[in-house]
C-alpha cells in the first residue's frame, strides 16, 4: 500500500510517501493511523490531533471508518486551503 502525506503532515513525518504493508487486522483508515503512529516519533506527532487530519482513499475523500482493505493509495493531509 502506498501512503502519501501532504503539507504539515508531510513535514512532520519527514517524507512525502512510503510503501508499507500494515497487518491484516488494520481494516479502516482510523486503524491505519493507530498503526502508523507506532512507526516513528514523526508519525506520532503528525497524527497527534486527529480531528485536523483529512483522509483520501484512492484519491477520494474518505472518513476514518472507511475501509482500506482494497486500497492501493491512502493519503493523509490537513484541511485543504486552495483557491
Amino acid at each position, binding site marked *: 500500500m502506498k501512503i502519501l502525506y501532504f503539507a504539515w503532515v508531510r513535514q512532520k513525518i519527514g517524507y512525502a510517501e512510503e510503501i508499507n504493508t500494515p497487518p491484516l487486522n488494520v481494516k479502516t483508515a482510523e486503524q491505519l493511523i493507530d498503526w502508523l503512529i507506532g512507526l516513528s516519533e514523526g508519525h506520532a506527532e503528525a497524527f497527534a490531533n486527529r480531528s485536523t487530519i483529512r483522509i*483520501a482513499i484512492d484519491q477520494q475523500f474518505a472518513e476514518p471508518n472507511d475501509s482500506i482493505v482494497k486500497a492501493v493509495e491512502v493519503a493523509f493531509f490537513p484541511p*485543504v486551503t*486552495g*483557491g
Partner: protein
Amino acid sequence: MTVCLQEPPFDVGLEISRMTAERKDVGAVASFIGIAREDNPDEGAEPVIAMTLEHYPGMTENQLLEIELEARKRWQLIDCLIIHRYGRFIPGDPIVLVVTLSSHRKAAFEACEFLMDYLKTQAPFWKREETETGERWVAARQTDNDAASRWATKT
C-alpha cells in the same frame, strides 16, 4: 468544458475570447480570479512575502473534473473553465481563474460562485506562506466551509 492544473500564468482576456468566439447563444459570462495577497488579516498583519501552493497530483485533477461536472449538473452552462495554478507566488500573482458561460446571468453567477466555494473546500491544495519571521501553513477558514455548505441544501 475545461479544467487546467498548471504552473504558468493565465490570460483571462484570452480565455474569455476563446470561450465566446463565434457564439451567438451566450448572454452572460461570469468570471473570478483569485490573487495572492500580501496581508492575511486572519493571522495578524505580518506581510506575506510569498506563498507556495502544494497539491496532490492525480487527485487534484480528478477533483477539479468532479467539481466542474457537479456545476454542469446543477446549472445550464454553455461552457465553463477552471484554471488552478500551483507553485510559488508573490502577492499580486493570479492563482485561480473560473469562467462560466450561460444564457442568463443568474446561472453564470451562481455556478461561478459555487465552483470557487467548492475549489476552496474540495480540491487538495495547501498554502504555505513566507513572512519575515518564517513560514507557516495557512489554516482552513470556517467561512470557506460555511460558504461551501450553502450549496449542499440545493442538491
